[in-house]
């Protein structure tokens, strides 16, 4: 038991730079939540960020601080357009929510960013690097982690192993070294385990480490998935409906975890969510999508006042019935939300 403890502490202190910087962040919070102070915004806005720029002009602290940008991204499936000419810039350390009615292209954005889909036109700027299609295999190495709209855990593994698996991109030892089990392989194993336990603790899942993840209730599985994403210590975290299908209590808990994850680990968060209440209280900025286009971008308060948003949302009540749906919960979730 003591051995495990030292292990944990060891792993946490030993070269866990991100946690260290997270502590630093806590002491000196970065400029972020809420409307950021105006800066030399207009001058540096990416030329392609036309529509978005107009909206965010007054609050943009400068696109130079963008960790992630979509530039003119279009995507269609067999002639059905999912995204058209989307420009979107995500700032370091912010929580950006993407909202919109069914079929608005929200999931497509996350899937394009994570390289699951390839954009037909346009490109993605990830930490200054330009990609037509983000190489999914290297995504974790690039500092991007994501969760999925429908859970994407590994049901055959325990909670601990699921989270440890989140460190897969850091493994350098060969399988022969791992069989032998000493040296680099041992260090990697202990380190991954310690970090996983730390994150599991953070998400209050400690009592469940040995449980097969498939046996957990849905809300907890969502939490494990978030833990798996965070253990990779990503700079950017993409959350595709992290609270879908949850009860109000679970949603609040989850929102707390997302915020805490940002505050603690300094992660930039892009999340898709339907519950407007949660979105408004959790996010720094909100991007509203409709029919594959970004129709509004700004602080929650600004977006709420935007006539186009009101139109899109009030319009959807009847228009929604015949749009093909993302998934069945969408309707439920939004029904609750509005």
């Amino acid at each position: 038991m003591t051995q495990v403890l030292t292990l944990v502490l060891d792993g946490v202190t030993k070269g866990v730079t991100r946690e260290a910087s997270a502590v630093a962040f806590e002491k000196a919070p970065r400029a972020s939540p809420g409307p950021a102070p105006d800066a030399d915004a207009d001058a540096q806005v990416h030329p392609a960020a036309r529509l978005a720029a107009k909206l965010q002009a007054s609050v943009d602290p400068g696109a130079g601080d963008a960790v992630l940008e979509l530039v003119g991204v279009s995507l269609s499936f067999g002639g059905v357009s999912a995204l058209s000419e989307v420009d979107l810039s995500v700032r370091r350390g912010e929580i950006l929510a993407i909202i919109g009615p069914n079929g608005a292209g929200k999931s497509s954005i996350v899937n394009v960013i994570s390289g699951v889909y390839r954009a037909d036109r346009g490109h993605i700027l990830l930490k200054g690097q330009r990609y037509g299609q983000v190489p999914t295999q290297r995504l974790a190495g690039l500092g991007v982690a994501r969760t999925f709209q429908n859970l994407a855990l590994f049901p055959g593994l325990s909670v601990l192993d699921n989270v440890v698996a989140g460190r897969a991109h850091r493994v350098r030892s060969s399988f022969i070294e791992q069989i032998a089990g000493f040296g680099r392989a041992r260090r990697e194993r202990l380190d991954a385990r310690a970090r996983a336990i730390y994150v599991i603790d953070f998400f209050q899942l400690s009592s469940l480490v040995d449980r097969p993840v498939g046996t957990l209730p849905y809300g907890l599985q969502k939490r494990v998935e978030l833990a798996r994403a965070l253990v990779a210590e990503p700079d950017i975290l993409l959350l595709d409906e992290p609270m879908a299908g949850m009860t109000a209590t679970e949603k609040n808990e989850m929102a707390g975890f997302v915020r805490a994850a940002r505050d603690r680990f300094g992660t930039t968060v892009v999340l898709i969510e339907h519950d407007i209440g949660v979105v408004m209280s959790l996010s720094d900025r909100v991007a509203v999508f409709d029919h594959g286009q970004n129709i509004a971008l700004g602080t929650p308060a600004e977006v709420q006042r935007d006539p186009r948003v009101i139109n899109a949302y009030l319009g959807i009540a009847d228009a929604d019935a015949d749009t093909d749906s993302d998934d069945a919960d969408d309707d439920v979730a939004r029904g609750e939300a509005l």
Partner: protein
Amino acid sequence: MTAFATDLIPGSRPETRLSRGLPGWALPVTTLAVAYLAVPLLATNYLFEAILLPFLALSLAGVGLNILTGYAGQVSLGSAAFMAVGAYAAYNFNLRVEGLPLIGSIVLAGLSAAAIGLAFGLPSLRLKGFYLAVSTLAAQFFVQWALTKFSWFSNDSASGVIDAPPLHVAGLTVEGPVGRYLFALTVVTVLTFLSYRLVISQTGRNFIAVRDNETAARIIGVPVLKTKLLAFAVSSFIIGVAGVLWAFAYLRTVEPAGFNLDRSFQILFIVIIGGLATIRGAFFGAALIVAFPLVLSRFGSFVLGDVFDSGVLDMSQRIVLGALIILFLVLEPDGLAALADRLRRRIGTALRRR
């Protein structure tokens, strides 16, 4: 709707752990002690030749296939081909490389099987499920054909038959059923232990991740293609060595036709009956597959007498085996390993109550 999603996730089975109370190594060590000390003293030649030797070879093949199918989720119908590659490669290395120790032949045979497995695993990078399963049949038919067609592999013997060389290990000549049993047991023990180390490592976790959700595995940085190929290579290595045991320790004389599709299915059945993604399941499965024809024939001749000729026996074996597979899939999808775990827990609680 989403609340039910968890019920729909396939294969959400608990990773069973060894019984609580006893340390994890207690059971394997006891088993090994019995296998090394008690069995050689007690068993008869018949037991070695008809049961224990085929059991050991098939168990090892089951362990190998389980790594590929149970852990990494890639169904293969060509296991017998890799056994054949192992057997014939060991034969040729032993024959053609002067002064190569037996262990060297075995390792090289395993590596040969791994190389062939890697080649036939390449389709797995693009194909999934049934398409992959069917494509592994290519290995089955191609290897069998090549070994029959090119007499070089069998040193120009008729129809590809090979005879196993005398087995020399560390200056000793392994002879007789007991010697061959201990030799096979040692090989199986070493490879099983290494397999166990592998499946609990990060690589083993990657296997399961690829099996359970390939997209998610890729996203978190599991090298999916490399992982799949590694599973094919490692699995083929082990199955290849199982082939060496089959040819050198068990039968001593083999022909390509012995490594046919039925053998491949037999190994797949071992894995299903024993339990997917458990190492010890392969041993349970192999035990059942080896023992049940013998039991059936005894039982049959006892109940039916003379009517039960070899043809009838053959057919009823097929029927019972097939039915057994279906029964396991329906009633106990986690196989004998899960059954054994439940049994042990029940005995454990019963004992504690006293």
